[in-house]
């Protein structure tokens, strides 16, 4: 039962939300190219070919991270909450599987940034005495459900002992 892969996926809107934020914050990738171009104009040595060349790596990175990565990330992300543990599987190059036993959980909360709010998404944050873990991008209802489920399980387990 434990060797199986966690079954719940995160919300599909995650792709859109991640894409949106990557396309906004990804504009920073162009900073070096813009700096180069503006300086070259400033000292009157503007060179069209070099300028285009300097933009290309940023553009490739921008499009890759903005368009492809959210899809890959979503593909891999799985989670499961049962009465024994919280099980997280993620990462499209480095597969990462994290297991947090329920009775080590200290608190759970849900978070929503401005971009997640736009898409009606929330993330669930799970803290132990040592670490914090996040299940990103669940729709608001599911996030609340997961949070309540975890905190209820935690209470149950602690009473049992």
């Amino acid at each position, binding site marked *: 039962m*434990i*060797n199986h892969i966690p079954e719940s996926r995160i919300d599909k809107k995650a792709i859109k939300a991640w894409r949106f934020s990557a396309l906004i914050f990804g504009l920073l990738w162009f900073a070096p190219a813009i700096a180069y171009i503006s300086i070259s104009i400033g000292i009157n040595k503007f060179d069209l070919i070099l300028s285009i060349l300097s933009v290309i790596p940023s553009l490739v990175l921008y499009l890759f991270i903005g368009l492809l990565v959210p899809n890959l990330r979503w593909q891999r992300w799985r989670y499961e909450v049962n009465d*024994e*543990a919280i099980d997280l599987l993620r*990462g499209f*190059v*480095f*597969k*990462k*599987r*994290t*297991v*947090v*036993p329920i*009775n*080590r959980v*200290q608190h759970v909360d849900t978070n929503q940034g401005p971009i997640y709010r736009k898409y009606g998404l929330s993330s669930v944050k799970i803290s*132990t*005495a*040592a*670490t914090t*873990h996040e299940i990103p991008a669940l729709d608001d209802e599911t996030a609340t459900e997961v949070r309540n489920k975890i905190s209820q399980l935690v209470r149950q387990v602690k009473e049992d*002992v």
Partner: protein
Amino acid sequence: MSEFRRQHWAAAVDRLFTAVRQNFVTFLILIFVGTRQAGGDYFVYVLMGTMALTFFSGIAGWYRFQYRISEGELQIKKGIFVRKKVYMAKERIQVIDVTEGLVQRVFGLVKVEVKTAGGGTESATINAMTFEEAEELKRELRNNDRVKIEGDELLEDEGVNTEEEFLDEWKISSKELVMAAFTSGNFGLIASILGALSGQLDAVITDETIEYIQGLLPGLNNFTLVATIVIVILLVSWTFSFLGVIFNYSDFSVKKTEKELLIRSGLIERKHITIPFDRIQAIRFVEGVLRQPLGCGMLYVESAGFEQNVKERSIVLVPFISHSMMHEFFDRFLSDFHIPELDVKPPSRSFLRYLRRPNYLLLAAIPIAWYFWDFGWLLTLLIIPATILGWLRYKDAGLYFDSKMITMQFRNFNRKTAFIRRKRVQVIEETINPFQERKNISSLSVTAASGAKGIAFSIDDLESTDVNRIRKWLLNGEMDYASTD
């Protein structure tokens, strides 16, 4: 202790002393720069003003600081302009440290630090109280009818009977102390100093300085000059770490009571640390590069607390102990733990991965160095020690687990062994990269609580089925040898 009371006035002295000590270098620089310029007089006034301000804030801070124990809480009121109240419930308290600093020793007093687990609260420090008061404080804060343990079970205590009785004591001999000091050379530190200096060498080693030094010491060529500099740096840093160990761990002892370990150490600043057994998160044995050939190392204990700083997070349990003595020490002081044979090892198909891993960084560095420096190609020689390191890491990696605890051994430079009770394992993480996936191996990381954050122990390239077994074990304590997947 149910009434609010003030600290001994030496607390104000200590504050002033600490402020001066912390800003000593700044003071020196300011005095040096300030008095050299025109209008240095003003500067002296500013300096004196600052000193006076520090002095009065020290006194005001002392006056405002009040503490008491009431309703099972340590309550502290403090703050000069912004008044602050700190309440610490005694069942949340993890560790109580008692330190006799320089100032405290002059007045025959101690400093008490009370630490709770994580969660953004700070530790409460009472800077000056008498030893008797400190003992009373400790007694009251320990005196629980019921102790609730972080994250797991409830323990029944024997009520008020907490009169402490020392059951056992462990000391280190002066020979061991000197050995510990001798072998304390911190290679990481030395390497970083050398690295920082090598960047500056070009500026320092000019033709003129070389001629000057050669004039002083004939017979030196460039090579011996560099070698001399390196040796001098090694000697100086080694001397510092030697003295550091002597100062920190002189007069060392570990005592055991029914429920706690009491550690005492220090020559000038003497520390007393109390760790209840049920607050021990993990035990860690570190065999330094110089110590391992002697079969010795340092034993640490991890406990949850608010420290962010890695160095302060782990408490030294025994500064120097040999492999053979460890069994005895565990039997006498850490009966919850034992030292097992490591039976889960990385499989032989991980061997080459272990050899390659330390070389990846070199692979990136060599071409760059080759291109930029005349003798950059010499970096390729580092492949040999890096490969040996990889071989050692493979040889040392291993783990053991039973229904109660897990033991993990691994090496970065120093060989480390971690002992964690199953109930204290917070998180287990398995990482698989595409190359590992093909070979069915994965890396394991086990995290225990330590300080405000956790401390992670990891072993690379283990059999994936073994990692699966450990994941199951974490949840139910069973060691399932027949893999069921």
